[in-house]
């Protein structure tokens, strides 16, 4: 083989490294771009096409189908799919017609379901026929009635119910006048509520579905009503804005196919912060011990190697350990010591936020230890000597000069830990993250932060979405949106930690 001259080697090596950097950049960019494109499609209003399938000449099936692509691409995708399905089959290929119907409405219901249909009429109890333009008045009326109903339920029915329950408890007789009075009241309000409910049920809209069949939707169930095919750009933007706000501020609906991911977002951030609070001091202390106190011998080297290897242990192993040791053993003991009243139903002896944070702290501990040690190694010898020479003991020296200097190293560890913990799924499923949690781990009830509660996590939410929503376009695009959010969260948390690190660096480390 020919030997390359020095300038040639220079060119080749710079070209090779440049090329690999470029490839890396392209891969990274396309990953982010893919997630962002797929994810943001969730927020953009879909168009609705009427798809009619003629299986045999006299049977046709029509449905309204939402789509994020335009009609040509939609047609193309459809015919590709048909070709693939029917090319090897004896069955005749069905005829499919796709149309864009401007008048179709998207009806988003309060519970998260979405329906499509052409508007026919508004019905009210007075049986007057309203135009759609007057829908706002109707909606306002319905809102008033709903408030009244809510008022009756909370201020009268629940209160009376409680009073009657108290009477039952204190053994007041069936026919006692006090009881009769309450019962009479209760019946009165119940009838009123029933009347309101009846009234509400008669405010409805009639739509016609793709096959021409009418269906009705109660006005009180409607969250949002609009014509996606004739939206102006401004309408689309404001729709997206609302959808984004809904996404980050509301709970999931319809088995996690619509609504928002606020609990998962909140759970992720809380878990990660809790983990950082646990892992930073522990990791720093362990590293300080290893670097400053442990004798420089075989044992220390072995420990060091073990710590680095701990970083390579598969995360699910940590999850199993967390479940077996933290949840069952530690949690079980805590329960029998402190919460024995509540047994056999466990308080801490069940997967929950604290155990998840602890498990993740354990999982990220090696990273923090290694980067703290790296930071400690960079502390100039002169700094220690200066401190000792002024009469500081070892502890004072470490605390006042070494640790501040090594703090950027600790922060580097925490940054890596955050990125890792925010993205983990497998161990979290075992130790406390669930796909749906009825309540947030923080609320107004003492002690405000409920470490024993199960929580939702974006990673787990995405994992769940990937499994259950393969057939549901709406759900899978919500999964991509969650992915995008997770990326953004990790980015923001990292940014925050990096800013802190740079502050520390400016402050303590010579430039």
């Amino acid at each position, binding site marked *: 083989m020919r030997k390359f001259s020095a300038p040639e080697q220079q060119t080749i090596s710079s070209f090779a490294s440049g090329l690999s950097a470029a490839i890396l950049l392209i891969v990274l960019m396309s990953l982010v771009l893919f997630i962002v494109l797929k994810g943001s499609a969730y927020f953009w209003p879909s168009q609705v096409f009427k798809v009619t399938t003629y299986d045999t000449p006299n049977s046709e099936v029509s449905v309204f189908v939402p789509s994020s692509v335009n009609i040509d691409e939609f047609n193309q995708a459809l015919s590709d799919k048909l070709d693939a399905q029917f090319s090897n089959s004896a069955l005749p290929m069905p005829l499919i017609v796709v149309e864009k119907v401007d008048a179709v409405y998207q009806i988003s219901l309060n519970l998260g379901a979405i329906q499509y249909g052409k508007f026919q009429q508004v019905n009210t109890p007075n049986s007057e026929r309203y135009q759609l333009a007057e829908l706002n008045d109707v909606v306002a009326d319905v809102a008033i009635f709903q408030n009244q109903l809510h008022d009756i339920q909370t201020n009268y029915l629940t209160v009376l119910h409680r009073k009657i329950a108290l009477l039952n408890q204190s053994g007041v007789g069936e026919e006692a006048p006090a009881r009769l009075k309450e019962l009479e009241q209760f019946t009165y309000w119940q009838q009123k509520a029933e009347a309101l409910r009846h009234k509400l049920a008669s405010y409805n809209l009639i739509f016609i579905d793709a096959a021409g069949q009418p269906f009705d939707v109660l006005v009180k169930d409607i969250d949002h009503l609009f014509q996606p095919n004739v939206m102006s750009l401004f309408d689309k933007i404001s729709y997206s804005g609302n959808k984004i706000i809904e996404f980050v501020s509301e709970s999931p609906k319809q088995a996690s196919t619509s609504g928002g991911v606020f609990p998962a977002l909140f759970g992720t951030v809380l878990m990660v912060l809790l983990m950082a609070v646990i892992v930073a001091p522990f990791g720093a202390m362990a590293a300080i011990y290893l670097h400053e106190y442990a004798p*420089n011998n075989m044992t220390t080297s072995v420990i060091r190697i073990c710590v680095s290897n701990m970083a390579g242990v598969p995360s699910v192993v940590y999850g199993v350990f967390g479940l077996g040791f933290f949840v069952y053993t530690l949690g079980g003991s805590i329960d029998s010591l402190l919460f024995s009243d509540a047994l056999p139903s466990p308080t801490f002896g069940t997967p929950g936020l604290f155990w998840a944070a602890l498990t993740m702290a354990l999982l990220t501990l090696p990273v923090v230890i290694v980067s703290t040690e790296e930071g400690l190694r960079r502390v*100039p*010898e*002169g*700094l*220690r*000597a*200066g*401190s*000792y*020479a*002024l*009469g*500081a*003991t070892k502890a*004072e020296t470490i605390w*006042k*000069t070494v640790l*501040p*200097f090594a703090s950027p190293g600790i922060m580097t560890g925490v940054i890596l830990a955050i990125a890792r913990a925010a993205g983990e799924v497998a161990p979290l499923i075992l130790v406390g993250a669930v796909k749906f949690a009825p309540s947030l781990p923080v609320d107004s009830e003492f002690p405000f932060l409920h470490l024993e509660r199960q929580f939702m996590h974006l990673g787990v939410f995405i994992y769940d979405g990937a499994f259950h929503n393969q057939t549901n376009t709406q759900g899978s695009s919500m999964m991509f949106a969650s992915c995008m959010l997770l990326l953004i969260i990790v980015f923001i948390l990292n940014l925050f930690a990096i800013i802190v690190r740079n502050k520390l660096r400016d*402050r*303590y*480390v*010579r*430039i």
Partner: protein
Amino acid sequence: MLKLFETETLSLDKLTDEQTAIKVKDFSVWLNNSLVLNKINMRIPKNKITAMIGQSGCGKSTLLSSFNRMNELNQKYAFSGEVELDGRDIYNKKENVAKLRTKVGMVFQRPNPFPMSIYENVCFGLRIQGKTERRMLDDIVETSLRNAALWDEVKGRLFDSALLLSGGQQQRLVIARALALKPEILLLDEPTSALDPLTTLHIEELINQLKKTTTVVIVTHNMQQAARVSDYSVFLHQGELIEYSDSDSLFTMPAKKQTEDYITGRYG
């Protein structure tokens, strides 16, 4: 030779224990298994200035840092012999090393300010001793910085990072830091190597002032400086004490050939 400051000279052979600040007896040091100091015997007189001279690598810094046990921070360190302070061997097992070091201050060869404000750098030793009273700290910071000829340059930015100071300013800052503790003995390892002649002169004046209350041991490569400021001088060569006498005699009529060669610049 020009002598700036006149002092009475004691004869080194006839020093009483009261007149002795540090007594070094058969002191040897091994670093990394090689002999660095070989059986040093000397008495450093109290409230005088003693200069240490010798070729680079001859063990000046090592001997200096034996006086406050800073040597021990080295990984592979071994010693034999004694260093006595106030009649007590500082290498005894029960010695409170932290307290010893507040009494025996040290300024290192390389300036090593802490990554803190100028003010906090000077206060560091006091804070370690649990002194927090603001007025007192302010006073000590000002006097120490004035003594180290740094006050005028930094009085407007006491709370800026010390790392932003120039090399020479940092050197004076670490001198101020050591002065703040008012040590009984001050060990200076080439304190003026990074300073201009005028500031050097100022530091030399300071050293002379300190003599009233403090014993100063100074390492220097500058023969003129050693002759100017010191009362006594010791010449080390390859870990051996070659000659130790009052500076006047050492620099004018050295007893040993090696000393003469060194101070006249024939080697090193």
